[in-house]
């Protein structure tokens, strides 16, 4: 198999890149969820200014290309005297861009909860913490598994753009392999199939979690 012959000597190198991709995605999804939760709570706030700031953040970071955002941070942060590595810059940029999408998901998850349900919980004498962990969170999670999953899949695809700021994640590693072997077609074809299978597997996993969390629902 000609594809395997080209790739085989560089498997270890590519796996290193793959590990970096996974690390970037995990850190970025954690950052995006934190930022998204904060933004979602700001967007549901009664204060007009707080709401405006949160809405503007979401609007701007969803309508500007990620590459431009990335360059803004990569070239801009050193201007401010903040010297961090390309990988860290990439994770920060991915978290900020992801947070804009996650805030939407969380907000719509919380909004699906009927006010009556929370009133009923209060009347039953549940504490505020209990109401949040036992009532609000399980219901919100049920509806937000799928949209959250598609944000995660998008982050995996977006992480390939980090290769443009010298991070040697999977795509960056593959670029080096293609340049060394002079076999760009084989290398990039394998890479494309790899990414596609990774994201397809992820979407199967997300479907499984969705069905697991919704197993008590009827007709859903």
């Amino acid at each position, binding site marked *: 198999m000609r594809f395997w012959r080209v790739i085989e000597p560089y498997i270890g190198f590519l796996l290193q890149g793959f590990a970096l991709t996974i690390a970037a995605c995990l850190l970025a999804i954690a950052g995006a969820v934190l930022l998204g939760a904060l933004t979602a709570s700001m967007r549901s706030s009664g204060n007009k200014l707080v709401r405006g700031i949160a809405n503007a953040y979401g609007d701007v970071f969803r*309508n500007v*290309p990620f590459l431009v955002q990335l360059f803004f941070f990569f070239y801009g942060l050193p201007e401010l005297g903040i010297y961090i590595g390309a990988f860290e810059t990439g994770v920060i940029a991915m978290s900020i861009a992801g947070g804009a999408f996650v805030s939407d998901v969380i907000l719509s998850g919380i909004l699906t909860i009927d006010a009556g349900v929370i009133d009923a919980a209060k009347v039953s004498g549940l504490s505020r913490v209990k109401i949040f962990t036992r009532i609000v969170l399980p219901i919100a999670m049920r509806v937000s598994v799928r949209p959250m999953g598609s944000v995660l899949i998008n982050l995996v695809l977006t992480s390939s753009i980090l290769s443009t700021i010298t991070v040697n994640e999977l795509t960056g590693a593959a670029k080096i392999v293609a340049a060394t072997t002079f076999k760009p077609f084989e290398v990039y*074809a394998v890479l494309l199939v790899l990414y596609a299978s990774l994201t397809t597997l992820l979407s199967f996993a997300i479907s499984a979690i969705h069905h697991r969390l919704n197993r008590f629902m009827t007709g859903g």
Partner: protein
Amino acid sequence: MRYADFTPYDIILLLQGLGVTLALFIGTTLIGLAIGLLLAVVHHYRIPGCRPVIVVVTEALKNSPVLVQLFLVFFGIPAFLHIRMTPVEAATLTISLNTAAFAFVIFRSGIESIDRDQIEAAKVFGLNRSQILRLVIAPQATAFAVGPLVGILVNQLQVTSLISVIGVFDLTKIGNILNLRTLQPFIVWAVIGLIYYIAAKTLAHVGGRIEAALRKSVKWGGI
């Protein structure tokens, strides 16, 4: 005056970049929508052997990074087939196919949203296949598809920024040039971002108006 300062000519440079971005976006959108529509129609008529191929190819395009697709087309295909390809050709080919993959899914669900009874009824009235497609399926599927399509196109406009990586002189590439010359990343990238933002917002606004106009005919207007 230092060479590093901004000059009035930079505005022309930015406009040139915007022109390349918009031209490529409009071109790939038209090609992509046409291919996506064709695929959806082929898929609808169950031409033997076509369905699995279409589904696998469009899923692969939707589930892999556009940057990798660009590299495969720009570096891979010329090396494999021993042909020449300019960055603009590679960018047009890649973004068109990518748009087509997303458009196919939307058109397919648009076609599937139409009740089978309607098609049966049209057959009973003696309409032939192409008449059913043109008079029954197309208008309803279009009204159904416009909303999601606008969403995808706003996204594809942002995706076009990636073509700067393979050397197309689009808006992002101009940003790179200005950034390297002036060394003022905050101003340069904020301006580039603002231009993209305005373009995306305008596109979403226009799309919303078109959708409203198409939905008007679907709404029940009374007798």
